[in-house]
């Protein structure tokens, strides 16, 4: 397990001064968050599909961990990142309102 600690230490350096404990807590919450959202979205369609997809998603997310580095990079104070997400949400909101999803 020492290797895992070193690995995470190396990865979390990008966050700049964050403790590994906080990074790990955030990571685990994110791991729980995505499959739950997937289930919440797809449960209306079919329970089995939702569970299977969520399990697959967990596997995929675990292999691409640590996820928290990417999330924190996308939530900095930079103007262009905020503008990018605002543009996407504007499009999606209008599409949901009128596209009839």
């Amino acid at each position, binding site marked *: 397990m020492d290797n895992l600690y070193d690995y995470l230490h190396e990865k979390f350096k990008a966050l700049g001064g964050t403790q590994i404990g906080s*990074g790990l*807590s955030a990571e685990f*919450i994110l791991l729980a968050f995505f499959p739950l959202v997937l*289930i919440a979205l797809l449960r209306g369609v079919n329970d089995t599909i939702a569970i299977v997809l969520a399990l697959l998603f967990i596997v995929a997310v675990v292999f691409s961990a640590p996820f928290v580095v990417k999330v*924190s990079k996308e939530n900095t104070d930079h*103007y262009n990142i905020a503008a990018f*997400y605002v543009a996407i949400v504007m499009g999606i909101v209008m599409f949901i*309102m009128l596209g009839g999803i």
Partner: protein
Amino acid sequence: MNSELIPLMVIFPLISAILLNLMHGKDKVVRAYGILAMLVVLVVPIFASYGNHLFGAHPVVDTLPQLKISLSEVNLAIEYNFAFLQKALVFLLAAIATFAVLSHISNEKKVSGVYLSMIMLSIAAVSAVVMANDIFNMFVFLEIMTIAQAAIVIAVGGVSGYKAAFKYLVFGGVAGASILLGIALLLGTFGVLNISDLHNSLSGNMTNPIVLTAVGLIVIGWLFESGLFPFHTIKSNMYSAAKPDIAALLQTQTKIVLVALAIVLLRLFGGYSNMTAVMLGLSVGTLIIGSVMALLQTDFRRLLAFTAVSQAGLVGIGIGLGTRLGIAAGIFHAINDAIAMSLLFITVYFIYERAKTTEFKRLGGLLVQAPKLAFIQIIGILIVSGVPPFNAYQSEFRIIDATIQAGHPELGVLVILGTILTFVALMKGFYLTFLKENTTKIALGKVHIYNGLPTVTYVTLIILVIACVGIGLFPMPFYDRAYSVALKILVGW
């Protein structure tokens, strides 16, 4: 019924703003008038009686056939509603703003009249948004609020403040234009601006694509004003760039505006499930991302900023459920959380004013120097994390209950996850500030002789703790009122 004191809640802060700006430079006058004005601002909502106010005395008229509106009667004037919810929100705003004004007056050697006038303008604007029953009037005061908030952050000075305010104004322009375009589409389609009239015209019209466009545009504006998902970095940047006492005021205003605008949206388009789905989905994202980001911060102010944003997401979840229980719990949580987060921001303000920094790597070991502050802060952390017997427990419990009742148990799990994460983040902040060994020997500096800050801060903190415990022990008066508002939203005003 007409109540004369209702417009004074907006007009008096506006007059005070003008006068304080004119007095800028005369220190004693500004101090005296600032305290006096805050007293009036606090007292007026208590004594105002419930009812409506019609501006310009223009009454309701029976419609003429030429109007092309299928309503039996139409409001001519701008109308303000004032009921228990409005009273609670306006009073809460006035109370938090009083601390911001008093802390400025008691802390600064040279008082800035312009700064106080901006605080007054934001109070007036938020009060107007809360009470307005007219969608265009609401927009006008939202714009005033956006500019005034940016000005308060600019007044702190420094590059970070300028950057935050610039971003806030740019995206505020996008959101404001979006709301205005939505209002224009509604006005063009139905010819009325009064929200009650629009509600009556809109019932059964929710398949009109122009109305749906308007819904989307106003929802985008709502997302900005309440700091939800795509705008959460901008809001948190504003909170962390402002002084923490102002951040307390800003987050209170954000939650109040969130509730006010959400009530308008639900009253107008409540029957449209896609809208509540969008609100719910983005709120869930804000809750989780906000608390994750809070955990990763290295500065106490930024940590609290992201916590405040994630709590706004929690309020949004309650409202976005669109059920009676959910809306009531959301409104209730907005009030509770505004108080609790203000408590935390004010404790950090005290540290910031005396240690001149809130970075974790420079703080530490403050428990020895400020045990009382540490005690109050740990109470605040427990309140925000939803521990009984405090008020946020009552509302978070009801939000989780509402998610399960609404048939979304996964959301309940997510709310619990977010709450745990908030608790972990805040405890991390507490540990690094108060418990960790102080390696850099930063001490809480001595305060000046003119500085009445400790007294003001401690009195405010104790009042806020008492309010939290009081609402926590006796939640029903507030929750029942919130529930009746929710009933009215869904059944009709």
